[in-house]
């Protein structure tokens, strides 16, 4: 039983990261109807940036905040410079754009910081949390930070003018424009926030998977799986999906014989395909309706 609880809690901790990635993917999907294949690489780059700040002697939490701001600005710039001109382009062009961004960021990070694996610090330590053997302080910290972030986002979208404008721009762009919302900038803002959320995921998972240019590959696939499971049209679904996928991954790894770390990615693949076949709209998404 203790093993079971332990695995559930560990699943929630990694699930928190997947929830962040899924949320970032869904935010951009809501804004522009495309999946950001470069989301993981953007997060990786932000994580390296924060690592560099810490190497220069900036304390962890300051580096954390500066990285958030950096990622936000970076996300807005990417949208303005690269994807805004592609807004009306066919889907193939957009996919090509994301793939290009993926390749550029991955390669540039390798150039600047090298492909060797680096340790990444955690401010929480890795001792047992509150004296219990079930969960480490870093895992508790991952859950805590994510939950805090989700609450903040909820309040932002529910109770601020800006949040309302962003929701309006995502759900009915034409009408939003008529009431005077600058929808184009709302999309850019969505990109910025997605990049910042992604960077939090990167910073939190880096002590676990270690810092290297390809660190987010597996995390991104699980983020996609979470987003698909929850429904690509639902931010809430993405978060729930993230936690579910995290728990599922851990339980499958513990209880199904032969499924270990080496099957991590194939499991995500199977999960994505199963959801797409059985329930393409996901748990909370709207079914796609097409007019003939």
């Amino acid at each position, binding site marked *: 039983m203790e093993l079971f609880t332990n695995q559930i809690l560990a699943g929630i901790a990694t699930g928190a990261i997947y929830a962040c990635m899924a949320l970032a993917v869904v935010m951009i999907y809501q804004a522009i109807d495309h999946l950001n294949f470069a989301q993981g690489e953007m997060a990786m780059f932000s994580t390296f940036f924060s690592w560099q700040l810490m190497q220069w002697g900036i304390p962890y939490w300051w580096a954390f905040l500066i990285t958030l701001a950096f990622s936000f600005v970076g996300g807005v710039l990417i949208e303005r410079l690269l994807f805004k001109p592609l807004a009306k382009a066919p889907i193939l062009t957009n996919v090509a754009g994301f793939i290009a961004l993926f390749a550029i960021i991955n390669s540039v990070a390798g150039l600047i910081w090298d492909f060797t694996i680096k340790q990444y610090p955690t401010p929480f330590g890795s001792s047992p949390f509150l004296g219990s053997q079930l969960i480490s302080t870093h895992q508790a910290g991952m859950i805590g930070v994510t939950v805090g972030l989700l609450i903040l986002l909820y309040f932002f979208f529910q109770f601020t003018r800006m949040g309302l404008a962003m929701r309006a721009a995502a759900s009915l762009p034409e009408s939003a424009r008529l009431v005077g919302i600058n929808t184009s900038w709302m999309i850019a803002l969505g990109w910025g926030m997605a990049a910042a959320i992604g960077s939090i995921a990167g910073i939190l998972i880096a002590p676990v998977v270690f810092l290297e240019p390809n660190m987010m590959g597996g995390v991104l696939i699980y983020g996609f799986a979470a987003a698909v499971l929850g429904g690509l049209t639902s931010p809430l679904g993405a978060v729930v999906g993230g936690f579910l996928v995290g728990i599922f991954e851990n339980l499958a790894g513990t209880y199904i014989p032969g499924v270990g770390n080496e099957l991590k990615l194939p499991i995500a693949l199977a999960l994505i395909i199963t959801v*797409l076949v059985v329930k393409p709209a996901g748990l909370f998404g709207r079914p796609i309706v097409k007019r003939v």
Partner: protein
Amino acid sequence: MSAVQEVVTEAPAVEAVPKRAMTLGYGASLIMLALLIAAPLFVKNFIIFQLTMLLIYGLAVLALNILTGGSGQFSLGQSAFYAVGAYTSAILMEHVGMNYALTLPVAGIVCFGFGFLFGQPALRLSGVYLALATFALATAMPQLLKLGYFEHWTGGVQGLVVTKPDAPFGLPMSQDMWLYYFTLAITIAIYIFSVNLLKSRSGRAFMAIRDNEIAASAMGIDVALYKTLAFGVSAGITGVAGGLGAIAVQFVAPDGYTITLAISLFLGMVVGGVGWLPGSIVGSAFIIFVPNIAEGISKGLSGAVFGVLLFLVIFLVPHGARQVAIVAQQLIGKLKRN
């Protein structure tokens, strides 16, 4: 996206490519063929090897082109089919002792089956979902190949070493040159097959689905069947390319078939021009030679160069090499008139 908008907006149709524009004229084809036949007589073995790889990647890009340019579906997972083809050939040659030439059809058939089965769920998906599923497939493939269960066959992380075939009938040729001509023959055969496939009833069905799925099904085309078929054919050709690749490189290992390969092939298609079959060879040249040049400047730079060039292509020449070829043709036409 709102509910209202979702109902009224259609998936943006891929721009229609007229049938004739998908191939080269006879004259140009013959010149190209003569060049390809003569090329290895004048260069060193290493360059012959690179030319062989050019043809092999050309095949893989061609396969993707049939899928995307022909039937309008996406795949970011071509590296997975390439890997399956490569492993099929390698395992048959090294464990079963089969002749290298005979392993290729087997690789093609195995990949056709794999692609067809993968296409079954994929055909229900469109656009981003298909891109997502194939992206996940490409990412997961190296881990699948490393699995302990198959280690006896696949060689696990180490991979397999493949022996390079000698020229048959005592022909006075180096191994590289023989392999080049062998690859060239297969490439030409598959190219002719592809051109004819796209001209046939099935090819017209692919294009009808690409241009308007609903209209196609109203005309009585079995959309599900043809979409899966396109996936299967594309995977099959990629598998043959993979098998040839394994013979040419003499080595297969899981880390040779990562998402980077899938990205390269996708890039090759975009650079060559989506839906323009001869562009495949241009795209293939691009993905073979550009990284060499970039790596010469700095190690690890090739990704960045790829990415930047890809952005340049989609912003400046969205139809890739086809657009360049058409502009060139018009220029020549103008000069002739003067």
